């Protein structure tokens, strides 16, 4: 009981701090002050801390993730994006990136807050450590790709400003092209293997449990297509030497494809991946 109270409290704290930090980041874009973005980064770090503690309580509550509800799932998405972003802050000082990423984190958090706690995301017959691994790794991989795309989006903006010689306030705020390209590179470099292992875990599980028929699932086909594009991009980057604008553009497109596979497919097609029966 105490744990579930603490769990609720830490989650709420994380949600509030996340909202404050997102507001701060957006304001920093508006008033064009980097200092505000720097403060927001610290607030986001605090939100991350609370969310981490929240997970510890969740684990204690549900005896180490045997039960995984959709609230945990969404807040884990937020946590993963947050972790990747904060880790990147150690490597590159690109605070303003937060203005693009924190709204995403906040969206996940709000969605998580709207979900009812308690019901396992996975039906009884799919509960296994393999599905847990599959979930976590694919989320992490996607988080990295999301950030790669944010960096790509910012690269395209900065590129346009520099090419058109519009050197007003915005250009001062956005990180340098080189830094953005590096973030894109790092995220692809880490995201691809992580997503690959996540997908492999899913494949193994499906092979064991479903044996046949799962390969034709539209969601799996879309994901596979997205994964292939990322693989292709990574190849172009490492072997052919693609850099800068083209990389930014294509990683954005690839991310849209992945989002489609998660959102669009769910609505348009019937898929094995929709486990909820309302």
């Amino acid at each position, binding site marked *: 009981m105490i744990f579930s109270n603490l769990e609720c409290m830490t989650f709420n704290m994380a949600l509030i701090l996340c909202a404050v930090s997102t507001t701060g980041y957006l304001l920093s874009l508006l008033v064009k002050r980097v200092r505000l973005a720097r403060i927001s980064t610290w607030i986001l770090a605090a939100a991350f801390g609370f969310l981490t503690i929240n997970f510890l309580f969740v684990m204690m509550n549900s005896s180490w993730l045997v039960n995984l509800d959709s609230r945990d799932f969404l807040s884990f998405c937020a946590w993963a994006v947050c972790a990747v972003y904060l880790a990147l802050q150690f490597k590159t000082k690109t605070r303003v990136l937060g203005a693009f990423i924190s709204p995403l984190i906040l969206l996940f958090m709000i969605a998580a807050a709207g979900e009812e706690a308690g019901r396992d995301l996975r039906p009884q017959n799919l509960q296994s450590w393999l599905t847990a691994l599959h979930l976590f790794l694919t989320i992490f991989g996607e988080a990295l790709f999301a950030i790669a795309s944010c960096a790509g989006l910012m690269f395209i903006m900065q590129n346009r400003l*520099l090419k058109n010689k519009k*050197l007003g306030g915005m*250009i001062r705020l956005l990180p*340098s092209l*080189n830094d953005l390209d590096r973030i894109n590179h790092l995220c692809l470099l880490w995201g691809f293997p992580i997503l690959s292992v996540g997908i492999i875990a899913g494949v193994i599980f499906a092979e064991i449990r479903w044996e046949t028929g799962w390969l034709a699932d539209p969601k799996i086909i879309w994901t596979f297509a997205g994964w292939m594009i990322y693989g292709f991009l990574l190849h172009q980057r490492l072997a052919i030497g*693609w*850099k*800068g604008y083209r990389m930014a553009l294509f990683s954005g497109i690839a991310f849209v494809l992945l989002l489609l596979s998660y959102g669009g497919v769910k609505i348009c097609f019937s898929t094995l991946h929709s486990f909820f029966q309302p």
Partner: protein
Amino acid sequence: MIVLTGLNHKTAPIAVREKIFAGCQEKSDLLPALRSISGVEEVLYLSTCNRVEVIASVAEDGKAIKEISDFLARNGCLTEAESKGCFYEYRGEKAVRHLFRVASSLDSMVMGEAQILGQVKDAYRDALAKYTTGIVLNRLMHCSFRAAKRVRSETGIAVNPVSVSHAAVELAKKIFGSLDGKKILLIGAGEMAELTGQQLIEKGAKSVIIANRSLAQAELLAAKFHGEAADLDALDKKLIEADIVISSTGASDFIVTADMLRKIYHQRKNRLLFLIDIAVPRDIDPSASDLENVYLYNIDNLQDIVDENMNVRKKEAIKAEKIVDEEVARYVNWQKELESVPTIVSLRNMAGEIVQAEMEKASGWMQNLNKDDQEKIDVLVNSIVNKVLHAPVSVLKEESSDISSRDIVDAVRRLFRLD
């Protein structure tokens, strides 16, 4: 009273400034000499390439300020015609405001430049070393440093570059982030290109290649930068290595064409390329700008940035003037408090508060005493306090007409923690 006299780039031509600068530079006992002028109590001498100023605290507003400017004119061996109209004189609050504006770089030729605060600090250090400042100027200078720091951090006056070469360096940073290890290619050995190259190296760029029609000239410049000289014919090979290209030849045709860049695209492995074309007529084909990962700026583009930034500075200067006003008010307030009457009042108030607080504390056990005794204790306490305060108050009153009272007032304020 604080007075300030001197001349700057707005009031005096360079010939006059030079003479004064040289005259004062030679004099080793300049500060003691200024101090010995009758009526001058504290003095500080500030000299930069654009201004020579003396800030002093004087006994009363009399001849001292005129004598200081005469002293400067004498030192610079100025004729009467030369010195006429060159010197400005500020007194009291106006002098304080002028100094704060100078330290905040609002009075500089290039508004917002960063050197002036350092120069003001140096001037203060010199005066400290010669013991020509005291309580008034010490406080004044520290307040001016604070005003300058606030202007720098709270306004955008010094944020954007206002010279072409600085603008180019800022752009390079926007493209590459850090310039560490970046390779610069100078095409043509012009002065402007050299200056820009120099600044890029100061910001961390690694090596320089100089390509010039005359190889001898290129080698000369290469020696200066510890770089590499190259012939113009080998330009496309050198373009492969470069990250930043600065072109400033007198050629009438394009030296770097878009085709040339397209051909070496793969050899460069699509690295970002920053092209700066400061030549007129232009050296680099403008259509190069359409290529991926290539950023081309010509002299007009850079000049536009500088003009725009200058406008921003002018807008920010309005904010800066407000900050200066605030700091001036703060200083003037402190100065007023240095007079003895307010200090006597606050000293008495403090004592009164202590008496009241202690009497209240004691009111518990004093209830048991009869009224007569209570009144006696009251009288006793007040008379002790008055006796203790009598000496400091009478010294403050006696000295209030004298200028040295400031030291005493300041000491009293600090001893009794009145601030």
